[in-house]
């Protein structure tokens, strides 16, 4: 039931924002903030209550099921396990920050903005807990539309193009996935003697012959790797990320990409163990290509947000590598990577947004020497740049270390190339610091002000999160151990 509450609060809160904003935008902001915080507190509070359950390691912690379209065996089935729980925490954490960092950035149409923001979050949360494939697809789409509006209305100069690109890319994947879902639905129905259902747990024990399984699996996989994104299907990402408003980029990089990875872990591997194992080597290869390719492009960019966007292409390559290594260590690393990348890249985008607010440009050639004026921001930026190049005692290191460690026995060569990606990541990450904060101060006129209290809260919480994940990741690892373990034994 709590899951329904979580999503419901966001949806209702969104509508409330829209309505209230006609009169008073200030109240509307607070409504949004409170809505997200409550949504955040629900799983946290639940965790505080039921801690023993998790430690005991029963995979499925919460279930909620209700009929929806019985004629087609579609039910409103939500469930949460460790993985979902982790993702939910990330979602709401970033959600709160997203609301905070759009506090002053959004001047007009505030109500509709927060409506979209909250609905996107609701959609994402739904994706992480939906256990009925139809429902999953439903949420999958629901999170797109508001996101489209966020980009298309509050975006930057080139927003419409970016918005189209984003929507069309993801939609293509989505529809292919829908086809696969249907195919799976009928195959299962025929096998189980007319028990037609979209329920995840029912579909789990569907057996398919090689070719069919591979095609159906491809349908899912394409949808997810477009979201991930995987080279060469990544082209929507740089545009969307660089054009979106700060909160938009934060959510795109921090959460939407994760839904892709989540989808692979939750659906592709368990539903098609054999088929996905057959494509594993290819997927790993592409992942490594992504790591290198993304890094090269990131190094070349001069638009700060675009640069960061390409870094996430590179980082998500690690996810692909890790997932298809089919090793517990690697998969645990992938989960860590989802978290840490969400936090670190999100933080970088927020920083980029703050810089844009102050300097009104995203071009790093027009920045430089900002450390003098903004030592605080500089320090924070240093932390997250180091995170993105995988410095130990920051969460990203644990993630990448585990992924590489896990993938190494499977394919040493690819892993070594991927490790080369670490050097490249150092290249582009240092370039950020050097171009933006070091060197001669370029800004004429009065120097930009340092972080305000609100911004300080945002960045401090992110920093705390990334350092905590780096020094004491055990809780997360424990949380997903069972899920991952099951995944590994399945194949």
């Amino acid at each position, binding site marked *: 039931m709590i899951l329904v509450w979580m999503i419901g609060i966001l949806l209702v809160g969104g509508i409330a924002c829209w309505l209230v904003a006609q009169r008073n935008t200030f109240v509307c902001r607070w409504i949004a903030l409170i809505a997200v915080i409550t949504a955040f507190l629900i799983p946290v509070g639940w965790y505080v209550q039921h801690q023993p359950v998790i430690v005991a390691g029963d995979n499925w912690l919460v279930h909620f099921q209700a009929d929806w379209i019985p004629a087609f065996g579609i039910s409103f089935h939500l469930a949460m396990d460790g993985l979902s729980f982790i993702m939910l925490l990330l979602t709401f954490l970033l959600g709160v920050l997203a609301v905070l960092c759009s506090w002053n950035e959004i001047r007009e149409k505030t109500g509709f903005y927060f409506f979209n923001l909250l609905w996107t979050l609701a959609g994402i949360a739904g994706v992480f807990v939906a256990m009925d494939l139809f429902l999953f697809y439903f949420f999958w789409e629901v999170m797109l539309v508001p996101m489209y509006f966020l980009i298309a209305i509050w975006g930057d100069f080139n927003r419409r193009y970016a918005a189209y690109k984003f929507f069309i890319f993801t939609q293509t994947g989505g529809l292919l996935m829908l086809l696969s879902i249907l195919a799976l639905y009928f195959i299962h129905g025929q096998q189980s003697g007319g028990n037609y259902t979209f329920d995840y747990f029912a579909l789990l024990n569907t057996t398919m012959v090689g070719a069919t399984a591979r095609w159906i699996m491809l349908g899912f996989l394409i949808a997810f790797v477009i979201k991930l994104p995987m080279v060469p299907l990544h082209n929507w990402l740089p545009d969307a990320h660089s054009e979106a408003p700060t909160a938009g980029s934060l959510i795109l990089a921090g959460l939407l990409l994760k839904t892709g990875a989540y989808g692979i872990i939750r659906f592709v591997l368990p539903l098609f163990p054999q088929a996905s194992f057959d494509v594993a080597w290819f997927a790993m290869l592409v992942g490594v290509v992504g790591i290198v390719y993304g890094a090269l492009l990131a190094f*070349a960019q001069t638009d700060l947000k675009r640069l960061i966007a390409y870094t996430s292409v590179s980082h998500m390559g690690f996810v692909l590598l890790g997932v298809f290594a089919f090793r517990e260590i690697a998969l*645990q690393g992938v989960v860590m990577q989802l978290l840490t990348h969400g936090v670190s890249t999100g933080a970088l985008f927020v920083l980029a947004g703050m810089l844009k607010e102050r300097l009104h440009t995203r071009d790093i050639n027009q920045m430089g020497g900002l450390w003098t004026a903004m030592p605080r921001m500089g320090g924070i930026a240093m932390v997250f740049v180091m995170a993105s190049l995988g410095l*130990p005692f920051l969460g990203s290191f644990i993630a990448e*270390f585990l992924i590489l460690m896990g993938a190494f026995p499977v394919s040493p060569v690819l892993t070594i190339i991927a*490790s080369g990606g670490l050097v490249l990541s150092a290249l582009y990450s240092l370039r950020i610091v050097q171009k933006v904060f070091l*060197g*001669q101060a370029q800004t004429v006129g009065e120097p930009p002000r340092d972080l305000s209290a609100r911004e300080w809260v945002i960045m401090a919480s992110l920093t705390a999160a990334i350092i905590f994940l780096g020094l004491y990741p*055990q809780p997360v*690892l424990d949380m997903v151990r069972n899920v991952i373990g099951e995944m590994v034994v399945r194949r």
Partner: protein
Amino acid sequence: MDQLLAYIPAFPLLGFLILSLFGRNLPKQLIGVIGAGTVCIAALITIVVGIAFLQTTPEGGAFSQLLWSWFRVGNLSIDISLRVDALTLVFIFIITFVGALIHIYSAFFMWHDRDYARFFASMNLFVCAMLLLVMADNLVLMYLGWEGVGLCSYLLIGFWYEVPSNCRAANKAFLITRIGDTALLIGLFLLFQELGTLNIPGILQRAPDYFASGSSNIELITILLLVGGMGKSAQMPLQTWLPDAMAGPSPVSALIHAATMVTAGVYLIARMHVLFQLSPVTMAIVAIIGAITLLVAGCSALVQTDIKRILAYSTISQIGYMFLALGIGAWSAAIFHFFTHAFFKALLFLAAGVVIEALHHEHNIFMMGGLRKRMPVVFFTFLAGAAALSALPLVSAGFFSKDAILWYSWSAANGNSFLWLIALAGAFITALYSTRLMLVVFWGEMKTPIHEQPAQGMVIPLIVLAFFSVAAGFIEWPHNMVHLTLFSDHVQKVLPETVMKQGLPSEYLFQAIAAFMTFAGVYMGYMMYYGKPGVRWQQSPGLSATREFLFSGWKFDQLYQFLFVKPFVFITRINKSDVIDRMYNGIAQASLRLNSWFSISQNGSLRLYIVGVLAGILFIITLQLLL
């Protein structure tokens, strides 16, 4: 006693946290006290621990403390836990003790700098990271320290960030070491895959019965570790970053780029000595790399004009000696040289810092001169340092350590005459450039006026270090002279004894030759530079070409520029706007063209529409008649 370990890195960390969070609001005095104080406390604790260790060697030969479990996944379990054995003890002593002196020095040296707090924050963080590096009881935690010191060196080299060249130097340092680090990381993966553990004691204890000596895996692992070490310790071919790293403040060069961080490679190899002993090929490679490095860097040091670059190159070459020693299996000799080198090289850098400060940030030695009378303290301390560097027999610590290496490079089982000759040549060159440095800087007439004398607080560390760079040698005498080998006895609790050849000529002979070479170097330097600094070099063109070649560090930078940097930048530039994007734009274009074609049919002409209908009919009818 075990419980004390955590406090050694904890105090510098505390200092870092305080300074980085509130540093901007604190008075400078307080900052200085915190910055230097925390390290001094760490040093005191270290000494306490050290005494305890020397009195009663703990069981297992090490103190160890488990702080918390870092992460456990599957069969991989990594803890945050510290471990101090004889080898570590030497390192943490140097780190904290020399570090403390340098911090005290810098408290005065950096007084006028705007970012006083940032400086000490970074320095404290460095000390903390370096301590973690040497105290870690598993390789992942060590890697944490390893990267941490890299970060701090990056921050401190680029400390004066307004100057672009400094930032470039910082980047260069970070990137080149990063290459080594990555190799090291891969080494860890392979090691884990083979042994299933990354715990240092575990590895050392499992390796011998797991690996066959000289098996390809162990060779590969050790080579990867070696590359990591080469990166950090600026050995060939990854040495090019160190000279540029002199862009940082002098104390930084003293602490990071002379005494501690650059010797991390030495530590790594010594720490993993079991693995290296199992892989003779790698051992040979280590020795050869060390030999080449010490020669190459020494030659470059001969012709530098920037005082700090001279010292930097000499550092590289001294570390070359240590690698040579490691390569030939003279473990304790290598560590001993590290021990003495830390003192005298730190001393030299700090003294150089004083000189540079005194002369309005003048780096060029040929613009100095005649400081002997004006800055006596600095002169004598510098003299002590230089003497140790050029290993003047019996009166300098450098002699004892370097003489041991020279001796072993012939006499050790893996040693041979060739290595010995190179080492000897190195000794000669070292003496030569040390003399050149001394003479040009302190003799002759004065070219730049002195505008300030060093503060007392800066002199005291100099004197202390000077004392040690003379006296530190007396704890370890050559076997044939005095039977006093405290150091090697201590270190050999961890490291194996050096295996010797049979039927060697008397050791006195070697010592005599070594001493002679040293004096020859000094004399030649005296001949060339006394009074008439460097005139003879500028004249003959052939020599000046060689000089130019050596001056630019054997053109390694240019080579790498050409081989790696330029191609990389080229590739990234041409693909800035993502080639793959073209594909998708192409699809979009195609559908738009299709659209324009189709809409031709919608030209509003009724008759065309009728034709359309007719076409449809014909299509259907024909289809029907065909099927």
